């Protein structure tokens, strides 16, 4: 078990930049998630750590050992790195039984037969695949294959686990179940784990810390809580959370000694708390963000005193189960509110309150967060 440090990592494929100047420090025993849309360089970063891809520049450290550095002509082969990887398609060896698959990393290392037998059995026990040891991968279900892939990665007690979208090929129900089991397993083993996914729910539920990547560039690194409550830019704010944050384009204006956010269809008073931060942006275009759960229907709210109700039309009401999603619009401005119950009817108008203490403000030009 080691920490993983990445310095100035860059990898280009032809003219396409997969990873650019990535700096990262993953602590010993941490469950770290690379999150981002497809083709944003997450997997490339992972492959660089595994040694399966040689970066163009930068350094990869496993603990105190420098394993990759094109500048210093250092490159340790994946065979020697003591990292284990689980691939999205599981990459099981189709001609070998489950036992042989799991035993493979040990056999290659020349462990003795008794030791191999013991460890494969113990790992199979841990993952609940003991009854499958004589089968071939072709005879297994998706969930079982996924476990075999995990067992093969775990059996040799690697320093770092690299998981590349390991749940992507499972059905929704199994994915949720496996997510929890994987998290438990990681806590039990305490192995430094790097997990790649494009699913923000997976990232939020499992990670100690998350790095959000887009087009090879790091957007933000932080705990799930930090990313959710303090996104550092529009991309992170939009990517984390489901349904996603509402964004309203507006201009900051001063009127009657107060600051207002003018969104054409309506005007929202700027809460006194954030006035100091916003003061320098008067006259500029901003983007306001508010999460669906911070919008309320007026009738159902008690104790919110701001006079900032928006009269909007309910377009669609989605009953999700524990809550409802109200898809609202006013002119060309759409909003989604997440409410417990509603009196609204489709096509009718409804008064919506905003919890102004929860709004996020972004500079429209730079897309960076202001507060």
């Amino acid at each position, binding site marked *: 078990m080691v920490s993983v440090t990445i310095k100035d990592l860059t990898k280009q494929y032809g003219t396409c930049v997969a990873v650019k100047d990535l700096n990262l420090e993953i602590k010993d025993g941490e469950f770290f998630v690379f999150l981002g849309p497809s083709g944003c360089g997450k997997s490339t970063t992972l*492959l660089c750590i*595994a*040694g*399966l891809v040689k970066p163009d520049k930068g350094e990869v450290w496993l603990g105190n050992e420098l394993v990759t550095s094109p500048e210093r002509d250092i490159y340790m*082969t*994946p*065979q020697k*790195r003591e*990292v*284990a*990887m689980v*691939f*999205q*398609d*599981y*990459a*099981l*060896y*189709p*001609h070998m039984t489950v036992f042989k698959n799991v035993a*493979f*990393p040990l056999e*290659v*290392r020349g462990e003795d037969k008794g030791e191999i037998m013991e460890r494969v059995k113990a790992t199979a026990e841990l993952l609940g695949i003991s009854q499958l040891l004589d089968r071939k*991968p*072709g005879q297994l279900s998706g969930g079982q*294959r996924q476990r075999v892939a995990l067992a*093969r990665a775990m059996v*040799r007690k690697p320093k770092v686990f*690299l998981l590349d979208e390991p749940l992507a090929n499972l059905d929704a129900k199994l994915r949720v179940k496996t997510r929890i089991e994987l998290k438990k397993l990681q806590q039990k083993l305490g192995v430094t784990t790097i997990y790649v996914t494009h699913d923000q729910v997976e990232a939020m539920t499992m990670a100690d810390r998350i790095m959000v990547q887009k087009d090879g560039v790091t957007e933000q690194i932080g705990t799930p809580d930090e990313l959710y409550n303090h996104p550092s830019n529009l991309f992170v704010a939009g990517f984390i959370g489901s349904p996603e944050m509402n964004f309203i384009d507006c201009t900051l204006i001063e009127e009657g000694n107060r600051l207002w956010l003018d969104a054409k269809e309506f005007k929202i008073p700027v809460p006194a708390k954030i006035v100091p931060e916003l003061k320098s942006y008067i006259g500029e275009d901003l983007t306001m963000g508010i999460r669906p759960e911070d919008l309320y229907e007026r009738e159902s709210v008690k104790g919110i005193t701001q006079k900032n109700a928006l009269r909007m039309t309910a377009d669609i009401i989605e009953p999700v189960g524990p809550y409802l999603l109200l898809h609202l619009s006013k002119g060309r401005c759409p909003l989604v509110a997440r409410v417990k119950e509603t009196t609204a009817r489709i096509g009718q108008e409804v008064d919506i309150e905003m919890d102004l203490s929860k709004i996020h403000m972004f500079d429209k030009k730079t897309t960076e967060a202001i507060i």
Partner: protein
Amino acid sequence: MRSPKPRRVILYILLVFSVFLFLLPLWACITTSFKTVKDLIYTTPVEPPLSPTVAPLITAFNIMVRPLLNSFTFTVAAMILSCLLGSINGYILTKIKFRGSNIVFLFFTIGIFIPYQAVLVPLVLTMSKLGLYNQIGGLILAHTAYGIPITTLLFRNFYGLIPDSVIMAAKTDGAGTWTIYRRIVLPLSLLPFVVAAVFQFTSIWNDFLFGVVLARGSEVQPASVALANLKGTTEFQWNVQMAGTLWYALPVLVIYLILAKYLIRGYMAGAVKG
């Protein structure tokens, strides 16, 4: 019982007729092999022999046995070598990316299209220099070299179907290039090996040109060359020649019958997609 549709009936008649036409020469070959010289004159080739005899078969066998063994030796050797080398080439070209691998592959592809006739003179010169002229080793070398491009192409296409993630998994599991080939790639190669082996066996066995320039009249001359010499100098011994042809065709027939079974099994078990 439902009566078959007229279109079906016509189809079957056509098919039976085609099969009949196609098998007629083989039939003539078999009947002729059992005929005496007298029968050759009194019957047409497709008629059965009047007084069947195995004498032509025995005569032909005695002449052909040595060349057949020669052919068998160098065919099997060259087949195994070219398949193994093709497999290794295919693995390197698909799974170990190196600078210029596409150009190397291009050269392999060009190799497929070089006609035998174009290389005869340099081939003979090279073999004499190497001391392999009129040697079984020369035939093995020539056929192996000539087989490598096509087997490489075949294995390369097949290995393209093995997901890269499987190779990457093996690498992180600690396996080196050669171990990956031996433990992962080779065991998954039953299907291309059967296909390549059948192809190579047939084309090497049936080759006449290399045999005739590299080993004509020698101790090691191939069966194809011996068969051509079988027709005799003073008279046409059709019965002996046909019998020789039967002996010559037998191994290919047997190989096909054995391997066709594996070929189908290979298709069923060869599904790499896990």
